[in-house]
């Protein structure tokens, strides 16, 4: 073996070091912390020392923020802070759940179509574009209006299915850019099976695009839940959701502005963090330009 080893030349003895890991910035971690807090709150809402979000305290109607009611109460005397925390369950469940459905169906199909091309790709892409031609929101509203009684699972399912064509298109485009690269061909001629190529070669290379689209997707769906609630198509009251809370407080906005401000703020911060994280991650993982 050793007689084959040729001494490395000047140009190739460059010190082998791990490049310094680029910082994501403190704001990124603040956002991650805030999202983490939201998710933890949603999970542990029922064991946290919070007042019952449905309990109507007629002694404290439209109360301003105080130590007793951190963010005040609504026109039925319900604690707003507690309702926001419990409400995040619906918003987060709809956002994450529907994206799991959307990615669970759209991503594998998009990858497969982009990798296989040919007839499979033609059929799938045409079908998806037909769905994309419909305004998704109108379809979601239509289905949810007639599919009663409304339930969280149904909302998640409908929004999830509606997001499939979008996910499909993004993932397919991302995969196509990778699928023709030499290293994919190289893996193939080194004997890798299609499944291995999809999972080991393609998936890691499109993951950055997928993850940032996933985060933006969750943000969009959380907004969509708000919009549906505004039309009375989200979960049935009195179950709190951020969208429901904003919708219900609409009528008393002039007397009690807190009521619309706080859930809006909660939603706004949540979305801001999601978008910011998605954007930072995308540029952080953008290592397609390999530097020599």
């Amino acid at each position: 073996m050793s007689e084959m080893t040729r001494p490395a030349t000047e140009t190739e003895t460059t010190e082998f070091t791990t490049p310094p890991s680029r910082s994501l910035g403190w704001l990124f971690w603040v956002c991650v912390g805030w999202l983490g807090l939201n998710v933890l709150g949603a999970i542990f809402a029922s064991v946290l020392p919070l007042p019952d979000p449905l309990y109507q305290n007629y002694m404290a109607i439209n109360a301003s923020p105080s130590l007793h009611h951190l963010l005040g109460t609504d026109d039925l005397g319900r604690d707003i802070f507690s309702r926001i925390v419990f409400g995040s369950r619906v918003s987060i469940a709809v956002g994450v759940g529907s994206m799991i459905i959307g990615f669970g169906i759209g991503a594998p199909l998009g990858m497969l179509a982009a990798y296989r091309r040919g007839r499979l790709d033609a059929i799938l892409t045409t079908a998806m574009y037909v769905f994309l031609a419909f305004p998704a929101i109108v379809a979601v509203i239509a289905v949810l209006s007639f599919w009663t009684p409304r339930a969280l699972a149904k909302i998640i399912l409908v929004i999830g299915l509606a997001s499939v064509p979008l996910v499909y298109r993004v993932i397919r485009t991302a995969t196509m850019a990778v699928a023709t690269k030499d290293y994919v061909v190289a893996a193939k001629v080194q004997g890798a099976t299609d499944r291995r190529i999809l999972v080991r070669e393609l998936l890691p290379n499109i993951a950055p695009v997928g993850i940032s689209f996933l985060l933006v997707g969750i943000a969009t769906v959380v907004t969509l839940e708000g919009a549906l609630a505004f039309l009375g198509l989200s979960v049935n009251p009195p179950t709190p959701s951020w969208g429901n809370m904003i919708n219900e407080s609409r009528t008393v906005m002039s007397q009690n502005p807190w009521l619309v401000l706080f859930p809006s703020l909660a939603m706004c911060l949540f979305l801001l963090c999601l978008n910011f994280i998605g954007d930072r991650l995308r540029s952080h993982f953008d290592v397609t330009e390999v530097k020599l």
Partner: protein
Amino acid sequence: MSLLDVQNLSVTLHTPHGDLPAVADVSLSVGAEETLGIVGESGSGKTMLARSIMGLLPRARASASGSVKLKGVEMVGARASDLRRLWATEVAMIFQDPMTALNPVMRVGRQIDETLRVRLGLSRSAARARAIELLEMVGIPSPEKRYAAYPGQLSGGMRQRVVIAMALAASPSLILADEPTTGLDVTIQAQILNLLDELQARLHTSMILITHDLGVVATRTSHLAVMYAGRIVETGTTRDVFARHRMPYTRALLESSPRVSNPAHTRLTAIPGRPPNLLRLGEGCAFAPRCGFASERCHRERPELSVPDESSHAFACFNPLEVGR
């Protein structure tokens, strides 16, 4: 029987502008431990020839006819599962650009492991040991450390060494090197080519070396095939093609390489005109419009490859050059 036997291979690409004959009626063979050089300008069909030998043509956009037999197994029209049995263990490919031939998000060692584990069925630890051995064999210093490196942490030359290690992993009988040094610095090119030479001699593999650089093939190949517009226009032993070439295109190609023995400031001879548009090939010899020796017949009729002489030298020309000019 030779290791690789290509008979009347034609490849047609279906483009939006019409059918394009990328490879036309190519026959060649590679024997055990032989090195065949394929030279030609860009667009002469070298890469398409290599891809069709590998069975890598895009099915929807290309069709191949003729026969490519590797160890007697037909590659043209073979099913993917049959090809997979031949890839890596019988025929492997070294890619042109080491920047794109390695997965940027996978450690280089793992990329070599894959082949060993999938094709040879080695265990994880055995594959790792063998991969490090391969990295050492291709001249990568401190291979244990490099095993865990990502491609982006290696220089171009190093990456090409990794690509070579990948190709050699399952000890193929035939290596297809498609312009293996085009993407590299000139100083690294010679190192990589010498490495290929050494490894080939040591591992007793055959090789097809595809290049547009005659300097590359001169000392490293036993046989040469000169391609023009998808056809082989001259073929023979490397010595014959260099010293006794008959086809004007071969001479033009040779003359357009700079020579150290030339006096300083010698003007490099360029081939006039441009490579033909394969979508609009005329009746005659594809090189005729650029050829100083073309007669009227050359424009009307296409010369076939002549019957090879006793040293397998053949050429396609109506007005062959004098030998030993």
